[in-house]
């Protein structure tokens, strides 16, 4: 029975694969991430896997106290990265507390040195820069909050084929911030491997990451630490 379902799916994947690769993933990434039909993806995970993991370089962000955050800081460990802003009462705290749940679940499953780091990129520098470190550490002391100048943020967001836009200020000075909703999974090679649609189910993500790590070790036998 599983075979019979599997063949049309495999055919669909064969047909859709080249289309995705041809279209580039920037087009696909702007659309809604869909529930995956691939066998290794646990139920409840909506993801977009990059056919070829995308290298992130040429960006500089700031992690507070004058320290920078660059491509080298993404190497050596898996990273979950999400965009947001500190004046976002609904989605951002929800995603961050969700990532804290994921982090707690992963802590039970993987070696401490293999535990992914969690990075929150504040895309509203005027309001985020003074408070982002304190804001992010509220959700987990190990979570890292970074931001930068508007230009630096745009460079980084475009590097992951994301989206960010600040709205016009209203009379009371408030303004809207729109940003990519996906949680980005970056490998120990500093490349974007997948994008996941929140909220993330901690158990399912644990399983998902285990598959990714296994595949990564298979493809990178030289990277013995991972």
């Amino acid at each position, binding site marked *: 029975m599983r075979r019979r379902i599997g063949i049309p799916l495999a055919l669909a994947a064969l047909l859709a694969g080249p289309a995705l690769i041809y279209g580039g993933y920037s087009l696909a*990434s*702007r*659309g*809604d*991430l869909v529930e995956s039909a691939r066998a290794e993806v*646990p*139920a*409840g995970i909506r993801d977009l896997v990059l056919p070829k993991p995308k290298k992130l370089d040429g960006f500089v962000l700031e992690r507070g106290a004058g320290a920078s955050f660059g491509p080298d800081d993404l190497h050596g460990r898996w990273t979950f990265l999400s965009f*947001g802003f*500190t*004046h*976002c*009462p*609904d*989605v951002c*705290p*929800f995603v961050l*507390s*969700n990532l*804290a*749940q994921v982090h707690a679940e992963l802590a039970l499953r993987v070696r401490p040195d293999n535990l992914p780091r969690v990075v929150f990129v504040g895309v509203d520098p005027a309001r985020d820069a003074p*408070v982002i470190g*304190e*804001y992010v550490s*509220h*959700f987990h002391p190990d979570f890292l909050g970074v931001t930068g100048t508007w230009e630096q943020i745009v460079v980084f967001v475009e590097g992951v084929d994301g*989206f960010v836009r600040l709205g016009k200020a209203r009379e009371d000075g408030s303004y*809207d911030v*729109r*940003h*990519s*909703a*996906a949680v980005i999974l970056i490998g120990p090679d500093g490349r974007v491997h997948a994008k996941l*649609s*929140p*909220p993330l*189910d*901690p*158990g*399912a993500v*644990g*399983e998902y990451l285990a598959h990714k790590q296994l595949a990564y070790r298979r493809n990178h036998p030289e990277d013995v630490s991972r």
Partner: protein
Amino acid sequence: MTASLATFLRIALAAVLMTAAALMWSTSAHATCGSVHVTDAWIMKAPPVVKMHAGYLTIENHGETERTLVGVASPAYGRIEMHLSREVDGVATMQHVSQVVVPAGGAVTFRPGGLHLMMLQPEASAAEISEVILHLTFDDGSTAGVGAVFRTGAPAADSHDHGHDSHGHGDRGAGT
């Protein structure tokens, strides 16, 4: 005798019917006043540096006419707005909502990533008190009050179910 019995019965029947009608009327009037139930009100705990909070609740309408929520206020906040978070083409956006219709016999739930109360200018003590009173105003002028508690995240009901799902998958994966 027969005629007077019939008259008596007719009067008695009328009385019963009138009583029943009066009862029904009073019940329905009562139901209209109390047909809206507000439950599960909570506020997402935010880092102290954040001066705005998001609130969530469920409004059940047990009445026979739709009810429209037009405003929410609280002594613990300077201003409360209704907002809708939406994900459009992978981009998180938020829009202001001026009213929320609760259909007759239906319910509306404010939840993370959807409808929420944007609660601005918290009183200094809002982060320390455990419960905040919310006053809901409907378009017919009626009001409802509810106490909201602070929580770090959404109630775990959904993720609990998913957890079981993923366990099932894990077992299957290990078996093949």
